[in-house]
């Protein structure tokens, strides 16, 4: 299999705290990979390193055979990585449609002058972007909420809207940070179906999730972090039977 994303010996420290310590793993093209670990293990920091929100102190991030180190976040998004955030970061006062249009932004061309003159090309581009955004809203099941202001959406809908915004950038790799966080059982079921459909579109997925049922059902590979370091990498079954992982999650077993 071809690696779409590969992290080599990533290290990131904040002051005296080593948040990520010599972490290496790969994400194969077309796969769904889970990044798991107890709270504070450094999972979100890894995501922030991939999307350029932080720069690594050491190590290399390679996406589709090109290094990402030193690129600004919007450049990385333009290369084909999109993400959602652990604590939902929507444009709260804007409509769902406007939120998704943010994802279409970098593929559009029209500048200030074309806008002021409302050139035919600019109008066509706007129209196409709106259609594109509507498609993504329909894809995540929010087509009836296109004109709803984001902050008025339910929690689960806000998570799905974030996914639609990310998909509108037409990513090759989608990074989801706790997509099921705060969802009820029914919403989680819907999310599992949605993740499957995203994979069918040919998008590779890397996700952080605490809901182990979701992780075990959708992920083909797991990477387990603890205290900033990688303690396991492999199939869900391998990870589940790894003694270090069991210890990290449950503490040392008492039973003989």
């Amino acid at each position, binding site marked *: 299999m071809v690696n779409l994303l590969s992290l080599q010996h990533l290290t990131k420290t904040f002051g005296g705290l080593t948040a990520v310590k010599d972490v290496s793993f790969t994400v194969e093209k077309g796969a769904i990979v889970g990044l798991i670990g107890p709270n504070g293990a450094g999972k979100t920091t890894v995501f922030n390193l991939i999307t350029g929100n932080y720069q690594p102190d050491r190590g290399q991030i390679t996406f589709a055979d090109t290094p990402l180190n030193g690129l600004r976040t919007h450049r990385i998004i333009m290369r084909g990585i999109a993400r959602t955030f652990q604590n939902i970061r929507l444009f709260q006062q804007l*409509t769902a449609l406007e939120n998704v249009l943010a994802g279409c932004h970098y593929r559009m061309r029209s500048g200030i002058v074309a806008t002021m003159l409302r050139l035919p090309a600019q109008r066509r581009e706007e129209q196409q972007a709106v259609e594109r955004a509507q498609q993504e809203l329909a894809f995540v099941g929010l087509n009836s909420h296109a004109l709803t202001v984001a902050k008025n959406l339910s929690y689960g809908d806000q998570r799905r809207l974030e996914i639609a915004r990310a998909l509108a950038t037409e990513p090759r790799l989608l990074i989801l940070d706790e997509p099921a966080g705060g969802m009820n059982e029914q919403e989680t079921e819907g999310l599992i179906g949605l993740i499957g459909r995203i994979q069918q579109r040919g998008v590779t997925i890397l996700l952080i999730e605490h809901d182990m049922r979701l992780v075990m059902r959708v992920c083909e590979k797991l990477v387990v972090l603890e205290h900033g370091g990688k303690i396991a990498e492999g199939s869900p079954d391998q990870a589940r039977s790894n003694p270090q992982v069991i210890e990290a999650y449950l503490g040392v077993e008492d039973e003989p």
Partner: protein
Amino acid sequence: MKRFEPFAIALFAALLAVAPLFLNTYQVDVLNSIGLYALLALSLNLILGEAGLFNMGHAAFYAIGAYTAAILNTRYQVPILWTLPLSGLIAGLFALAVARPVVHLRGDYLLIVTIGVGEIVRIALVNDVFGLTGGANGIFGISRPKLFGFVIRQPQEFYYLIWGFVALTIFLFLRIKRSRFGRALNYLREDEVAAEGSGINTDYYKLAAFGLGAAWAGMAGTLFAAKMTIISPESFSFWESVVLFMIVILGGAGSIAGILLAAFLVIGLPELFREFAGARMLVFGLVMMVMMVVRPQGLLPARGR
């Protein structure tokens, strides 16, 4: 409410169009002031209201436009209205140059820096920088604007020049608002990290907001210079920046209708209560305080707030 909006706008525009026929020269002059402030507040709104960048030094860009026009006109005899694009360009470039190193600052920090920029520009003008600005006395003898051979002199004539420019500005800014560019500014205001994470070059759009807002303020400066025929640094004090900031916040950041209303209130009301001279600023300050407590979103907030 929404159904009556087009009628309200048409009625307002019609009233403005015929107003000079029924008003005396003083009243028309007040309306001219309101128009200039509306223009400046609309330009500040791009930066403060749409992009959410705290700028309390907007008078600096206004001053640079006015002085560019005055210098070109008095020294090089360039017709004053011809200087309009160049004043806008110079003010815009100046804004890009000063904003480049500081746009990464957030909120109150940016506010303090922009106050500093406003003061530096004002003091530079007082000190007759490069021997061009005429020091504290400013520049006088700016020629009257000429439009298609017609010389604009009377306040009634300036009225149509100024409010015509306001109308054009609203027309263009509404287009910007409903475009990729306008949305990018809103994304910045709402959540910078999410904007950058959606593929938007946030640094570029912050600078673009400053550049365009300042360019428009610069053109307003040209109209001001043409109207006054004399300009001096005291017209571009810190207080002007504060008033503009106030108009945008009071009207409802991002709301064009709100900003027009606030320009009428903030500039027009003190004129109505001239008799109370001393007390009017007191009343004004109190009104502002009450407003911020009971209606912090502004008089006519942009939708969804």
